[in-house]
């Protein structure tokens, strides 16, 4: 409760400072909308449903793309870590592609999939897949061999060892990789949505883009705030439980 109050006071002060600057009229309201106008925009957009629809479209794209990326990245990472051949081939490919900001895939994605959901998903998957793959690969490689040996003496082998020993033992790496994958996916999706208009639905990025085109800075800033809040919530909902679990079991520090 104390921490909540502290955060509340901090953000309220930020908003107050922002409002005061607006009142001082240093910059034109077109360039710097005040928190009051932004709130008004957010309120109206919430009432007429544009915000909810756009958020839902964006979140749906993100969850599906991220899900596909993780579903591919986890087993591939396990495989590249345990097979020299796959490590030297797919592992190297992943390392290379991971350095490529996935928004760079947008032009190709548009050519391949046209202006469809598939193009958006492709960009998100590219943002997620490689960093998850590399994190899992790293985690498995840095595993102390004693865990697998101990498990073998207790009768564990094959898939059982993989699922019950290798995967949980590399959990700290896997979670941080999935977190990074999430961050990459979120950024690349926003980039893609601002960059291209998809006919199958307007996400938050597109809403932000329209705001810019119309010179409606209250809309731009309002959507930015929503993007921040969704990112923060996703972090809390998706990753906090895992981080708490690791804190409890491994004794690692919680941040």
């Amino acid at each position, binding site marked *: 409760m104390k921490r909540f109050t502290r955060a509340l006071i901090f953000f309220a002060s930020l908003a107050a400072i922002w409002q005061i600057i607006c009142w001082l009229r240093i910059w034109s309201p077109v360039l710097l909308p005040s928190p009051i106008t932004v709130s008004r925009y957010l309120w109206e957009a919430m009432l007429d449903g544009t915000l909810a629809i756009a958020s839902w479209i964006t979140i749906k794209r993100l969850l599906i793309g991220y899900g596909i990326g993780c579903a591919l990245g986890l087993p591939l990472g396990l495989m590249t870590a345990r097979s020299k051949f796959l490590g030297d081939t797919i592992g190297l490919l992943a390392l290379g592609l991971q350095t490529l900001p996935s928004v760079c895939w947008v032009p190709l994605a548009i050519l391949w999939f046209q202006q469809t959901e598939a193009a958006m998903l492709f960009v998100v998957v590219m943002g997620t897949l490689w960093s998850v793959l590399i994190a899992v690969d790293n985690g498995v490689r840095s595993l102390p061999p004693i865990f697998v040996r*101990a498990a073998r*003496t*207790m*009768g564990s082998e094959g898939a059982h060892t993989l699922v019950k020993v290798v995967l*949980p*033992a590399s959990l700290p790496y896997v979670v941080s990789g999935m977190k990074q994958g999430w961050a990459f996916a979120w950024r690349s999706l926003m980039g893609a949505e601002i960059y291209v208009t998809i006919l199958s639905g307007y996400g938050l990025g597109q809403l932000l883009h329209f705001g810019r085109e119309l010179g409606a800075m209250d809309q731009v800033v309002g959507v930015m705030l929503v993007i921040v809040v969704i990112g923060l919530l996703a972090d809390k909902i998706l990753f906090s439980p895992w981080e708490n679990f690791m804190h409890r*079991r*491994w004794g690692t520090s919680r941040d």
Partner: protein
Amino acid sequence: MMDIQEELQNIVPAKLKVDDVSKSFAARGRRVQALDHVNLEVGEGEFVCLVGPSGCGKSTLLNLIAGLDTPDNGSLLTDGRKVEGPGRDRMVMFQEHALFPWLDVTGNVMFGLKLKPGLTRKDRREVARYYLKLVGLEQFMDSNVHELSGGMKQRVALARALAPNPRVLLMDEPFAALDAMTRENLYADLQKIWAARRKTIIFVTHNVREAVCLGDRVILFSANPGRIREEFKVTLPRPRDINSVELAAMATEITRALKQHTKVEVAV
């Protein structure tokens, strides 16, 4: 369904036979003969300590008996059956506790039990509780591994190794990383547990006193190539106190022999 009493009953420990076993490794481009035609017989329920300088192949022999490695030559038999891989009849305790940090204490002890057919979840928990009580950690059933001290971790590792009710217990310098006080408590408890639940134990150590305190027999190894040099029967009454004069005298004798064998190696 298996009865929990039946699961916990004492079983006959195994006889072990190491028959003309050799094993070599490539280390830094050189071939190291870790074991060179080693023969050893261990009786039912016997407590045998393997002592020798590092690199003498005593841990290698343990891994071969555990089935974690295969010999280049010769064979290993438990009760006349050839060792062809790891098995629940031979459980291992390592120098590092090797407990799984993603499981709590009970989860660790139950890991091997989950792979044993015929037990319900409740049975497994009961069995885990029994063995944790045996090692004196019943009240830490729900603790996490990182919350335990080094000695407690090794106790959990011992409970984990005992839980599937193996016939042979293989211990690879399990107490080497612990402080003296903790170690002494564990010597006493291990002797008690060994008496309560008859097991054939092979215990690898480089601490001669520890070997004399625990073993029915102390087997001396020498390195390069790894060979058995000499063996000593320890007939001191149990439970033994590591600080007793008789024990110290015997340890001195064995240490002298050990030094002689290693000196011979240096001279050669």
